[in-house]
């Protein structure tokens, strides 16, 4: 089932470039030990991400959020336990699990368009076709007129939008996002969250979105996982900006904050 959104101005969003979206991946971490070899960061991690859902992961800085995502992406090998996608074990990174980095991960010598073309080139898409697809994706994140610019010639928010377009252009079945809006100011951030919801509509990709911002987690997530406490909370839909005034959401927000505060100091 294709994801549909009920948030503001979703109806005006252009259709996703893909004709037939691939189904989202189901990801399972069981009894996993995560970290760099010799330096485990997280222990006994059990996480179940359902196909096509948006799971947001909240936790204070330094609690291993990036480690979790890099492990899910296949960049870090497991130190123990199992990682499976659709029931089959994962070995190494693959195009079907795209990672959007917190830091600036665009290649600085490539134009924004050439950056978005890269996953398509790796997949072997012909030049003319990948150029057209890249331009469609840049249009979806509102960067049509900047397509020929180099990353250092655009703003940080525009670079993150390009990263998002690049990740989605590869038609991944799961998108792993590591505080992608962490370095942006509040105004840009709200716009980016909306943009993300828009860009994801029409795809069926599973999303794991890591953040330290509780409001962001509640706004974007179908479920919110609290890292370090082992708890997962369901978030009521629809995703409306004003949802903070809704008593149920407020209660949830208090619960999340209390859980995070209740952790032993790290």
């Amino acid at each position, binding site marked *: 089932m294709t994801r549909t959104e009920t948030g503001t101005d979703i109806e005006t969003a252009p259709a996703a470039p893909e004709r037939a979206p691939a189904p989202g991946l189901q990801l399972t971490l069981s009894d996993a030990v995560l970290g760099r070899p010799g330096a485990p960061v997280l222990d006994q991690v059990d996480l179940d991400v359902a196909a096509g859902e948006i799971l947001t992961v909240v936790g204070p800085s330094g609690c291993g959020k990036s480690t979790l995502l890099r492990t899910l992406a296949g960049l870090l090998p497991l130190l123990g336990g199992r990682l499976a996608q659709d029931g089959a074990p994962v070995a190494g990174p693959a195009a079907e699990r*795209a990672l959007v980095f917190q830091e600036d*991960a*665009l*290649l600085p010598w490539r134009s924004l368009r050439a950056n978005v073309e890269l996953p398509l080139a*790796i997949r072997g898409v012909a030049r003319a076709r990948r150029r057209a697809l890249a331009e469609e994706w840049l249009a979806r994140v509102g960067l049509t007129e900047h397509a020929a610019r180099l990353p250092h010639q655009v703003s940080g928010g525009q670079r993150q939008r390009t990263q998002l377009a690049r990740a989605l252009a590869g038609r991944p079945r799961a998108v792993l996002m590591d505080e992608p809006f962490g370095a942006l100011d509040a105004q840009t951030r709200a716009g980016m969250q909306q943009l993300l919801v828009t860009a994801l509509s029409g795809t069926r990709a599973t999303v794991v979105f890591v953040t330290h911002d509780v409001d962001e987690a509640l706004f974007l997530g179908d479920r919110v996982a609290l890292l370090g406490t082992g708890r997962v909370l369901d978030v009521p839909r629809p995703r409306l900006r004003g949802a903070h005034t809704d008593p149920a959401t407020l209660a949830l927000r208090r619960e999340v904050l209390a859980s995070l505060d209740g952790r032993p100091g790290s």
Partner: protein
Amino acid sequence: MSAPPATADGTGRTGPHRVAWLRYARITAAVLAALTGWQLLAQYRVNLWLRFAQFPTVAETAREFARRLGTATYWQDVSDSLTRIVGGFLLAAVLGIAIGTALARSPVVSDLFGPLLEVLRPIPAIALVPVAILLFPSNEQGIVFITFTAAFFPVTVSTRHAVRALTPVWEEAVRTMGGGRWRVLRSVVLPGALPGILGGLSVGIGVSWICVISAEMISGEYGVGYRTWQDYTIVDYPGVFVGMATIGLLGRLTSTAVELLGRRLTRWLPRTARGQGATAGGRARWRTARTAVGEPS
């Protein structure tokens, strides 16, 4: 490069114009002063502590230069030297980049060849002349080998350094797009390390000239270095100076070629990070001056 922008006052005597004009005036003055000094010292056979009595004057040298430009031998020498340096340097560039990259990325290669190269590196290429004579059947190959060795180490070392200093997240990004080893090499490692590699190429072409000339002096047949030494042994001092001027001009020509190629390949670098070389530095200042004029006061 491009014409300076039109100015508000329309006099044409604008800031950038004046700055450029001033620079050329200074450059010309410096060259003229050096040539005049040389001419006077040689002409009056000045013998203080340094002895200029045997020096040919600028005029004599220029006359000899003009005469030689009309001879086939001169061009044969130039083309021989250029062939040797281009051959040795290109070989060094290709192998240096390949081995430097392998050293940086593969622990196995690093263990096998790293210590060996570190021991060979301090040996001046010119000290390898006996080895070259023993190794190669012809002088020609020996000279190319010496030239190659001279450029190889700066290129290898700077490549290794540049590859090690790459931002890890670029590679991670390509790997999560499904890119394998070759894709990472092609799309991340080589383009990302290029600015650093170019530094090694610049150094390499300079050292190559030193070594090709020295090797020719020792064992060449034809070539600018051979000719210069030959002229010295037959006491043709103007000829020696023509040789030196030729070496200077050819050296400048090849390093400018490397510099221009480098600037072309790294146009993506942000402006402030670009232009560490002497010429590029001058140009950067030029640009600053132009910007300052363009702004409303």
